[in-house]
């Protein structure tokens, strides 16, 4: 067999939940290391190498020092994959973009003097693509393990991974769920990218949009549905804050 691709996993501001999903592949980890060499993965191993083909990067970019580190990773990797909502869209870390970085620091650390300390030198939260070009995205908070396997095998085989560009409702309807709207609740499924097997509505809670928006929350069709269900634009703005502050529509290939 030809040389296995070398894979490194990195994290920035996040809860490491997505990395944990990979670590939790359990016995399948053996299959994984049969097709790739994992050369760096802080959460599960001590060794580290700076030579890799594929960088899998989790977390959001919060500080100039993060930005420098991400650029360095990008320059070494042939393929850069964003892992999890924090990395793909900024996710929950963007909630704080509602306030100015100074206000946030003050709120969290009070009057403690953090000036000049690089670790506390924060700017507005960015997703990876706002700093460097990203080749592929593994969406979700946390990611879906099957989708992770799909992306990895595709990259090893030299294929472009197929990531859904349609809304969560598609998977939700296939699961034969009763629509959350029918139950009087407000679900972001119609404007959120599928791929999670509609796990939230399938377990009877609403979709919060963790895989990113595929349609602008401002689109006519969204307004129409909001009106029909007696919801307002303010409602959708509030709801999108959790993962999609800024409410930017993702481009189709992401």
């Amino acid at each position, binding site marked *: 067999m030809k040389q296995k691709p070398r894979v490194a996993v990195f994290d920035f501001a996040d809860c490491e939940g997505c990395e944990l999903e990979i670590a939790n*592949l359990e016995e*399948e980890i053996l*299959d*994984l290391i*049969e*097709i790739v060499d994992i050369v760096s993965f802080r959460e599960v191993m001590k060794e580290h190498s700076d030579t890799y083909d594929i960088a899998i990067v989790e977390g959001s970019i919060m500080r100039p020092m993060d930005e420098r580190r991400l650029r360095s990773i990008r320059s070494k990797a042939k393929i850069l994959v964003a892992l999890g909502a924090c990395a793909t869209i900024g996710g929950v870390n963007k909630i704080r973009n509602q306030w100015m970085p100074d206000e946030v620091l003050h709120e969290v650390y009070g009057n403690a003097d953090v000036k000049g300390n690089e670790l506390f030198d924060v700017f507005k939260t960015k997703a990876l693509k706002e700093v460097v070009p990203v080749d592929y995205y593994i969406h979700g908070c946390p990611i879906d393990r099957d989708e992770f*396997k*799909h992306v*990895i*095998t595709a990259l*090893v*085989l*030299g*294929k*472009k991974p*197929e990531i859904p*560009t*349609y*809304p969560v*409702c*598609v998977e939700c*309807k*296939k699961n*034969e*769920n*009763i*629509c959350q*709207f*029918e*139950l009087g609740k407000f679900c972001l*499924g*119609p*404007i959120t990218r599928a791929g999670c097997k509609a796990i939230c509505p399938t377990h009877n809670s609403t979709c919060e949009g963790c895989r990113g928006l595929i*349609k602008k929350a401002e689109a*006519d*069709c*969204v307004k*129409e*549905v909001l009106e*029909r269900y007696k919801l307002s634009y303010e409602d959708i703005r509030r709801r999108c804050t959790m993962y999609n502050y800024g409410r930017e529509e993702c481009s189709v290939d992401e």
Partner: protein
Amino acid sequence: MKQAVKIITKKDFLTLVNTLLQNKTYDVVGVKAKGKRYVFDTLNDADELSLDYDVTILPPKKYFLPQYEQLMKFSLEKPFEVKETIDDQPRIIIGVHPYDIIALQQTDTQYLDPPKDDFYKKRRDNTIIIGVDIQNVSERSFAGSMKTHMTETGFDLLLTDLGATYAVTVGTEKGSTLLKKYATTKDATSAEIKKIKDVRDNIAKKYTKKVKVDKKDWSSILVANYANSFWEERSDFCMECSSCTIVCPTCFCYDVHDEVSLNLKNGQRIRTWDGCMLRGFTKVGSGEVFREEPKERYRHRFYRKGNYLPERFGFVACVGCGRCGIACLPDIADPCDVMNELASFGHEEDTGRFFIKQKTDAAEKGIIHIPRSATIKRAEVRSEIDTLFEIELDDKKPLGHAAGQFVEVSVFGYGEAPFGVSSPPSDTPSFEIMVRKVGNVTSKLVSMKPGDKVGIRGPLGNGFDVKALEGKNIIFTSGGTGMVPMRSLINYVLDKKNRGKFKEITILYGAKRPKEILFMSDVDQWKKVEHVQCELTVDKCDANECWGGCIGVITTLFPKVRMDKFDSQNTIVVVIGPPVMYKFVIQCLRTMGIPEENIIVSLERRMKCGVGKCGHCQINGVYVCKEGPVFNYKEIKALPEAFE
């Protein structure tokens, strides 16, 4: 035929169901409550049955066309090890409403139309359907006005609630055997038989939602309103969630993809539900989407139900269940509302038909799923992105294709893609295809070497009618990869054995740039043949490329055609190229005085099955894979979408 009607007490019926459950031969499925809605699901106990339901969330099609269906398993390590995985689990479905039974009969027509789908057929044969007459009407259903609230065929047994008992109409031998084996019944009296009719008449009266347009008029109303701004106005509200196709009992389009195990040792080919409301449904490798506008997708769904399938098979492909109305959040998907609204616009009687169906003898022989094993004999890199392959079928039988037909090539783990056959018809087991690298399957193919295995389905589609070309002057006009199938035809026509049958030959060929010219050695040969004019052009040419010829789009070659030498009425023009090319070429040809019926085109659309099942390649109601890809321009030009 007079159907036997039996009477069974409700208690005895439940005992029958429990006996079947204990027996374990069958997967026993029935209608159960799920919150305030209902679903078809595997039963654990007869008491779970809710036969007085109004409508289920999904129709029973999920048992015949599963959402996620393994078609075959393959090995990625062994050269060609493919195993078909037909599901043969016997099943009984209890509680199917008449409209869903009618929908299944429609699906039969589509899936059992040649070539039949063996996977579907097996499930159909292995399933016993116990229908039930409707007891509660769903608020959104308009089955009453569609006359689909009752049926006399399509079930093995059909229950009608008569209070303490069910009347059981016996539809088939299978149903009769089941009843005799597991239940005690008595014959229905004529009073009881009359009661069945009363129950049905009563239920028909309960529908408050009614479609005002008779089924036979859906088609003409739709045709008359094709250009209505209605479609655009409504589709502005479409979330593109495809819920309307997913929940519909008569929607049966699908997609197929390959999945591989994490260790890359083996994989499986999976069929899943797809739907025309999704943008990706008509997307091809180049990035082009054939129904790009939401209004085109939105409109397509209604025409498929009310015009295309009625013209093809004779039935309106909506049974009035109302599921799409419930499922669509902006509430724009309900055919009853849409037809009633369209009817209010008024229309002229019988404004003609869009639908054309060509002869499909060749296409009907196609195989749907399992490809034949074949070996790459020769791989010649022709440009940075094009590789020519000679492929030999391992059973050593000739492919038996006509010029213009195509094959579906499988690369296991990557998928399946259609390619025109570029070699002329022959008796040898090998044939040629030219592959241009665009996406997953093609990128893998161009990296493959002699000795590697691929799967082949085909030949598929209708090729050129070469008889019709005899005695004529022929102008071959190709752009880009359009030269691939064209080369098959040109080499057939120029073959010494056949050359005498044709008159003046003109070959016009345009490529993007010099290095993308396919078959240069063939071109050199053609230039040497007497009575053949061969002209090439490229769109552009980089400074470092050597090109002494013409620069410009294909139409710049037309003034060079020595039309003075021959009669345009006796000239056939064959046009194959990228979608954008047709409009301009055809305009030119018309000004040159070529009659419409003398123009032959070969069209490209997104394809998956290649045999008229999966729905991807449709231009309005025409399956390009099955009725095409070769068409007579005059026949297809009236079809909106064909050359837009």
